[in-house]
């Protein structure tokens, strides 16, 4: 469905030192630096997959999404999306994809979203009956029935994002590029959008490539993740395997019935915190079973939970490790 080979994107950026003299000099003679936004990126995504596309700010995620949706021309390498070369921007290709950008909006600001929908119906040439059916389905899934008639400027951020999603999906695209679709939304609205994306994917079999800074989005939606940093591929595979590789530890949160002996806790694993009757202990994944047995056998445990490390921490470790490795090299 999506095939990316040796993809590179280089920007020429005008560099100018501080000061008026430098400003005047730059009028005559300019120095340009080359910025490698994406370097030798390779991956494949199969039909119907939901893939998280992760990386810190400036990693090249949005640039890659824009190349995949035909908005940017790659400097080098090849791209294929559903059999099309995106930068040719064939009509048939544009009818099969959509790009949702959480930070930008396509809704007509002063008009109710239904007007944007009607415009998209005309642009995409969607037959009336099909349009009505899709619109009903999408508004039901998002519980947005009451919103589509209000002027867009009067909608809350979350309500607007619901309508943005409808506008972006009316033509029933086969490939969804979602760039931070939940940015700025409150927790419950994030959950609604997540649920919607999953339902759309399951119902239509569309392929989803999602970037997000909210790790909950990725954890809830994407069995597979592609991680890039400074334009280069860092990891491509199952999310669970990534967590195990980067943070091979589990976190035990324990509540005791009576104060525990610190030396027993230390024997089990690394004590992250111990306050009164509550403790957190970090244990290697392979040692969890023994640790739990030991704790239950020797201490008065009232409650115990085993947790994966938070994804945010996993990512931080991954990117820090990457920077350190580059520094060492």
């Amino acid at each position, binding site marked *: 469905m999506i095939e990316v080979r040796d993809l590179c994107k280089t920007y020429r950026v005008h560099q100018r030192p501080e000061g008026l003299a430098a400003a005047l000099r730059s009028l005559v003679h300019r120095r340009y630096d080359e910025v490698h936004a994406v370097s030798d990126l390779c991956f494949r995504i199969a039909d119907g997959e939901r893939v998280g596309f992760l990386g810190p700010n400036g990693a090249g995620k*949005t*640039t890659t999404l824009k190349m995949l949706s035909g908005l940017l021309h790659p400097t080098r390498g090849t791209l294929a999306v559903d059999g099309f070369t995106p930068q040719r921007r064939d009509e048939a290709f*544009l009818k099969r*994809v959509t790009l949702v950008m959480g930070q*930008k909006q396509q809704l007509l600001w002063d008009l109710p979203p239904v007007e944007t929908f009607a*415009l*998209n119906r005309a*642009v995409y040439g969607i037959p009336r009956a099909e349009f009505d059916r899709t619109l009903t389905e999408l508004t039901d899934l998002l519980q947005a029935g009451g919103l589509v008639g209000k002027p867009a400027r009067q909608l809350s951020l979350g309500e607007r994002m619901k309508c943005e999603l409808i506008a972006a999906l009316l033509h029933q695209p086969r490939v969804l590029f979602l760039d931070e679709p939940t940015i700025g939304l409150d927790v419950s609205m994030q959950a609604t959008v997540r649920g919607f994306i999953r339902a759309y994917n399951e119902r239509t079999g569309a392929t989803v490539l999602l970037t997000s800074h909210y790790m909950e989005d990725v954890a809830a939606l994407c069995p597979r993740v592609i991680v890039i940093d400074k334009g280069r591929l860092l990891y491509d595979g199952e999310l669970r395997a990534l967590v195990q590789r980067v943070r091979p530890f589990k976190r035990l949160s324990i509540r005791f019935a009576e104060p525990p002996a610190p030396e027993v806790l230390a024997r089990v694993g690394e004590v992250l915190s111990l306050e009164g009757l509550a403790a957190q202990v970090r244990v290697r994944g392979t040692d969890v079973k023994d640790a739990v047995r030991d704790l239950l056998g020797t201490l008065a445990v009232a409650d115990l939970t085993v947790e994966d490390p938070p994804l945010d921490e996993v990512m931080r470790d991954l990117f820090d490790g990457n920077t350190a490795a580059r520094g060492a090299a």
Partner: protein
Amino acid sequence: MRPTRHVRVLQAQLRASVANAMQYRADFLLQGLLGLMWVGVSLIPLNVLYRDRQSIAGWTWPQALLVTGWFTALRAALEGAVSPSLTAVVEHVRRGTLDFVLLKPADSQFLVSTARFEPWKVLDLGASFVIMGWAFHQMGRAPAPLDLAAAALLGLVALIVLYSMWILVISLSFFIVRADNLSFLFSSLLDAARWPVQVFRGALRFLFTFIFPLALMTTYPAMAMMGTLDATTAGTALLVGFSFAAVARVVWLRALRNYTSASS
């Protein structure tokens, strides 16, 4: 994109523009009245000039009035159907929302050119017809049907030239960020089109005939309407119009390629 879809898109865009105008009813009325007032004010300098003269540069009062009528019509068409959409493009480029236009399976120039209309400019257009009618009334005759058709055709060419010049200005916004300032220069220059081009002498006459062809925009349609424009000039005007459109198209496509290969 098939022609029928172009028509449907145009319908949808027009409908959205009318709906937009209706959202602000007071604005709608006020803009309409202000427009009409400006049309009235624009007649004052002409009236003052002709108070003590029979003709200026060979143009009598009703003939010059006819040029003003064409100027009013052209400005109504420009401000009603061309500039609102194209000014929005500069904003699109600045905010990065042009991406949404480029993602649509339709010609991008068509989409951006039809994005917004100012419906109340229809009142100005109506006023321009009244001025033209008044001019002919003072001449004591009516335009011949063939002259009327030629004038309409030249009016269309004038609009194409104006539109193409706007597209050229807008294409600049892909390279330089604040191209919207150029639009002020543009409308100031256009203001000179309220006078017959023969009024200007020397360098200005050259500028307004060949570089910024104001002659083609209002003087020639008015002359055609009176039956005083020769066929060669009319033919040249048509040629110039289509050349402008072709150049604008090429520049737009190049500018777009620059945008899609450079922005992030």
